[in-house]
């Protein structure tokens, strides 16, 4: 999606409030479980793997690679590239690839997080390195 697109405002909730406070600071957070050691995204208070409540916030490097993508050509707001990024820390997340030539995207390509404004906290997107 291009810069003219108005992104929805994250509504947040008690469980995810800290995540959105940190996107304002330009930080992408993930959650890690100190019981089983696994990281996950989007953040839950109880680990989706071992169900322990010993989960802690961790700042992601914001670096990763494209797992897959698709360039959506039929859209009222113009073409956009949706895809999954696998973060260096392990978890994969759904995103859009922005600020790039979408025709040149490739699976395996290195990308990094960028934040786009909303009427509330900024949203994470990714762009090729």
């Amino acid at each position, binding site marked *: 999606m291009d810069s003219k697109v108005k992104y929805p405002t994250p509504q947040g909730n008690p469980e995810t409030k800290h995540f959105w406070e940190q996107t304002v600071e330009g930080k992408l957070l993930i959650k890690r479980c100190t019981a089983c050691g696994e990281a996950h995204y989007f953040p839950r208070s109880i680990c989706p793997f071992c169900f322990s409540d010993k989960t802690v916030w961790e700042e992601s490097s914001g670096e990763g690679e494209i*797992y897959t993508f698709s360039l959506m050509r039929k859209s009222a707001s113009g073409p956009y590239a*949706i895809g999954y990024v696998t973060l260096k820390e392990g*978890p994969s997340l759904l995103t859009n690839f922005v600020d790039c030539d979408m025709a040149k995207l490739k699976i395996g390509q290195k990308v990094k997080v960028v934040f786009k404004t909303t009427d509330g906290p900024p949203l994470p997107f990714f762009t090729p390195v």
Partner: protein
Amino acid sequence: MTIKGKAYIAGIYEHPTRHAPDKSTAQLHAEVAKGALEDASLTKADIDGYFCAGDAPGGVMAMVDYLGLKVRHFDSTDTGGCSYLVHLGHAAEAIAAGKCSIALITLAGKPRTGVMPPRATGAEVDFEAAYGATTHNIYGMCAMRHMHEFGTTSEQLAWIKVAASHHAQYNPHAMLKEVVTVEDVLNSPMISDPLHRMDCCVVTDGGGALIVTTEAIAKSLKKPLVRMIGHGEAMKGPRGGKDLNLTYSAGVWSGPRAFEEAGVTPKDIKYASIYDSFTITVLMQLEDLGFCKKGEGGKFVADGNLISGTGKLPFNTDGGGLCSNHPVNRGGMTKILEAVRQLRGEAHPKVQVKNCDLAIAHGTGGLLGVRHAASTCILERA
């Protein structure tokens, strides 16, 4: 406890319409219910179980009241397009447990001429809604990864549409009756890479219904006997983003459960109804169900192998969602209907599989590359 042989499909009906600006959604549900009851030679008063999903206006309470039903068992599980394959399994369970004896399952709606309700969202909404996930681009992502890992090609995917079109030419109600070629598919506009317009199913108004009952009641009726012998259901999602793998679906779990219960294998299947929201949906499901190895789906579907009469695995002989009908953007119901027609010997003579005594109806619902469900039903002629 097993459902094997405990539940029979005694009535089926597919609404002939593909465009219904002059009807209400509730009315379409009533019309398909009436059609299935007439097919079964039963009456509304006989129904004691009712199943519907998110397409039913107002949900199960409003529908039971609108239809004037008096039921002792109901289920409104909504897993998108495969809801009706789930309902068939759940109806078989309820019948096996004596919770009801004549179950009605309905699907209807009008995505062509009405407004579709927004997709339900969960805890993921703030983390995904901004990225514009649609069926086209989510299934496109699955196809991209499949091509990347296994070398699957657009030509191979196109063969799935070609096979569906060969079948649709004989279906007078099919929305698209024209036989197409691989080149036609590749030359159709790109919607969301790598899926072309002809890799996508049709959008239709309409619906369908089933009557599921006990062995004793089915045997007292006139239709050829078709019974459930296996069912499996499963779900898959990103689950915290660990080990993301978009090349397989929850069908890898629902399929084996259904085959095990039925005591048959994919090699035994004479006819396959496979949910075809997109060509990639079919290819992945054929692999997941064990009709071929993971990654070999492209080779399996190529060169007309899914065309009835010439291919090894006749599929979607009504033309499927790719050519005939995809009411309410939910293709599970029509998968069951054509499997029953095949087992009854009521398919069009040009596509009827000879001695068709064992069939599979399988589908996924939700978004294949995000969170989805799968349901597999194995049916046999009794």
